[in-house]
């Protein structure tokens, strides 16, 4: 039989019954593509053997962590092998001398944070899915999160990787050295490569000391453009908050409906701002931010306890999953523009929403210009679905005109691949293909994603 080799290699960690394939057929895009089998390796050697076998037999291999991605990176769109990293979830080392963690790809982001906390350390990238997304997935998609405004994204925190290449060979790229210029910077090529160039089996992550303290503020605006102006004003005043998030009116209504968190439902927008540092620094920053917000007509609430802080953040993190309350279909985009262009971009989305008569919900990371533009539609209404796609097309155009990017942190996968060329150009796509061929001549690794 086709997969006898894998069966012998993995025993009951090789799955091919429909009941199993079905549960490894989806991700948070809610699309379904059945793999032909599922494998659950426990170590790099097994991954190597699986990939070598797949390459020799020209069978697609799609790595998946927690399947919480929004761009379809974990979907077996051409069938083949679903390579689940669920069982490769060991934190191998926390090197306190060098402030580096060595982890397997299946480790959940939050589980790592919990392990690091007693040492006064953390891994800064914190996607909203941090409690249920894996480090491997975070690296493959080059994930961001609310803290990106201050700390950057995953690429800024990966020092090295162990990777299984398409022919099954195992390589190590990067190292524990902060400075390392030997050869091409392949580490950064693998970060964000969405499983198309190799399978990440180990990662060396830079860690950062936890700030002495932090404080969260919630500013309520009755005019969206003033909220956007506030974001620019804060940055202009040389304050870099550790998070600077915004939530628009429709998102406020949706979360309030789900959580009953006593949110201001009459507001046009909320900014959630977190500053951190020494007591003195926090006090100074908070005072300035309160002043800027107030000047822009906002009501400011300062969280005085962990509970208050958590409830503010819970509301923010709950938006994405609760959108289904509005409509069963959504085009979940994560465009990014230079932060000075935020107000303009949001205004554009509102004009586009009006033009195509669809509902657009905006929220996201205002501090780094990353806006989650969710175009909502009823899947049973084919005309509305068409209008939603037209609106999305125009949102991308406007975003690119402002010098933005079609994806800030979700990745391209299948959901955005038709728009990629518009941003990067045909010569660059051609180069992608040449790079892909050099790494994976048989195109077995996550084929037909990112236009590859």
């Amino acid at each position: 039989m086709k997969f006898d080799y894998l069966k012998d290699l993995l025993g009951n960690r090789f799955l091919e019954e429909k009941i199993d394939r079905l549960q490894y057929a989806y991700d948070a895009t809610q699309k379904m593509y059945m793999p032909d089998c599922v494998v659950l390796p426990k170590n790099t050697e097994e991954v190597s053997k699986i990939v070598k076998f797949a390459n020799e037999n020209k069978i697609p291999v799609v790595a998946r962590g927690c399947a919480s991605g929004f761009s379809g990176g974990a979907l077996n769109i051409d069938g083949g092998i679903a390579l689940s990293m669920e069982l490769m979830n060991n934190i191998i080392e926390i090197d306190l001398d060098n402030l580096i963690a060595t982890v397997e790809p299946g480790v959940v982001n939050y589980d790592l944070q919990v392990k690091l906390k007693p040492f006064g350390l953390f891994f800064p990238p914190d996607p909203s899915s941090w409690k249920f997304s894996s480090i491997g997935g975070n690296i493959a998609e080059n994930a961001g999160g609310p803290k990106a405004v201050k700390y950057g994204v995953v690429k800024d925190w990966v020092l090295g990787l162990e990777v299984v290449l398409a022919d099954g060979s195992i390589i190590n790229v990067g190292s524990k050295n902060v400075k390392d210029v030997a050869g091409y910077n392949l580490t950064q090529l693998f970060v964000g490569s969405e499983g198309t160039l190799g399978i990440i089996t180990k990662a060396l992550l830079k860690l950062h000391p936890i700030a002495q303290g932090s404080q969260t503020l919630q500013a309520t605006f009755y005019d969206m453009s003033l909220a956007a102006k506030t974001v620019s004003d804060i940055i202009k005043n040389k304050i870099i908050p550790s998070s600077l998030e915004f939530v628009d009116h429709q998102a406020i209504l949706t979360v309030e409906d789900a959580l009953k968190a006593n949110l201001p439902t009459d507001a046009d927008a909320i900014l959630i701002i977190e500053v951190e540092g020494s007591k003195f620094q926090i006090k100074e920053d908070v005072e300035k931010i309160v002043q800027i917000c107030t000047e822009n007509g906002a009501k400011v609430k300062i969280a005085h306890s962990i509970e208050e802080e958590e409830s503010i953040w819970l509301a923010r993190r709950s938006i994405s999953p609760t959108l289904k309350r509005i409509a069963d279909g959504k085009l979940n985009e994560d465009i990014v523009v230079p932060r000075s262009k935020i107000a303009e971009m949001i205004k554009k989305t509102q004009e586009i929403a009006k033009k195509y008569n669809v509902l657009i919900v905006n929220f996201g990371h205002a501090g780094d210009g990353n806006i989650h533009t969710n175009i909502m539609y009823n899947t049973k209404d084919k005309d509305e679905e068409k209008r939603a796609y037209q609106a999305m097309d125009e949102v991308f155009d406007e975003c690119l005109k402002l010098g933005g990017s079609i994806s800030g942190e979700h990745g391209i996968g299948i959901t955005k691949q038709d728009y990629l060329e518009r941003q990067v150009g045909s010569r660059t796509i051609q180069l992608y293909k040449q790079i892909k061929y050099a790494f994976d001549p048989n195109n077995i690794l996550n084929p037909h994603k990112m236009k590859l």
Partner: protein
Amino acid sequence: MDERLKKEWESCVKCGLCRSVCPVFKELRQEPFVARGHISLLSEFIKGNFDFDSEKSKDYLYKCLLCTTCVEACPNDSGTDTIVEIARRRIVELHGLPLYKKVMAKILLNRNLMDLSALSANLLSVFLFNKNTNTSRQSNSLKIKLPFVDKDRLLPPLAPKTFYHKYESYGKNAKISIFPGCLINYTYVKIGDAFINILHKLNISYLIEKRASCCGAPIYFSGNFDDAKILAKRNIDLFYNQDIDYLVVLEPTCASMMKFDYPKLFMYFDDEEYIKKATEFAEKIIDPVKYLYDNTDIKDRLKDTGLTVTYHDPCHLKRTQKVKNEPRDLIKHAAKFKEMKEADRCCGNGGTFSIDYRDLSLKIASRKIDNILNSKAQVLVTGCSACIMQLSEALHIAGHDEIKTLHTLELIDKSLGG
């Protein structure tokens, strides 16, 4: 099937958040053991794209505690407990029930048969059980191997006299009726004793309706909807027209079953008459601690017992019935209260789950032990006898017999002077 039931799974957006809260997933770490996996299987089954014919169906769908931790955390209110129950019904149709669950259904359907089984088990107990020298455990280990039950498992002794045999309705113009639940009726009668004592001290009249049937939870949770429906109808018919303000259901799982699952059970069968009746009936069902808290001056009467107490939230009390603060407030008046970390983390009992998957069940229970110890409490209080059974065993295994377990009602009774 009633359209309203479908939102339980159609609301899932496959975000994966349930992976961060499920106690079973925390141990097994694979998609087939988490809500999103269960939901996907059921929704594909409903669409006609999949059936539960694989032998693995049982392993995947029965390894769920129905603790509803995922339901509480789900931003879209997907009802995984209901989803798992409906999937199990299909599994029963295809694969049948294990023998012991068939026997259990037969017994639970018939109160006389239940009494007889309990009586014979009690008479035989001298031969069956080793006398446990530690009376604080109030449980015995088996002398011989019984089918379905591990030999070293600590089991609470059956009471010589059941709750229903011990008590009659009391007082005039009673506005509450007491439903003890099988576990309290047959084994933890002392918890029932505590509630009766409290009511007498407060001079509250009560009814005890001895024709009541088992609530059907263990049967329904196994996926045996047909027998569960018989019991649900019997109970609704019995209590529906009674002139009472409350049906006080001592076991949170029974209360949860009658209050929230009865309406869904009838939705499954599209039984309009009983959906309506069950929904109205649900209004009257209340937990005893919440009843005392809301309707009496119990709080003012409590005296400090001098004990240091921590509290475990039973899933079917905190998550489904939303009773969380009432027991804590009462405990604070009766003892020195120490909140433990993750007090609402499931104890891992899950009814027949603890029989079918004992090792996994105890592993989940053991995760609570450190939190209990770190609270530095002498007594672990909780509001559910199944949790008491589970946690006292887990404490025993961990070598911490010095920590006693009490039901909230027992602590209240003590605090009122015993």
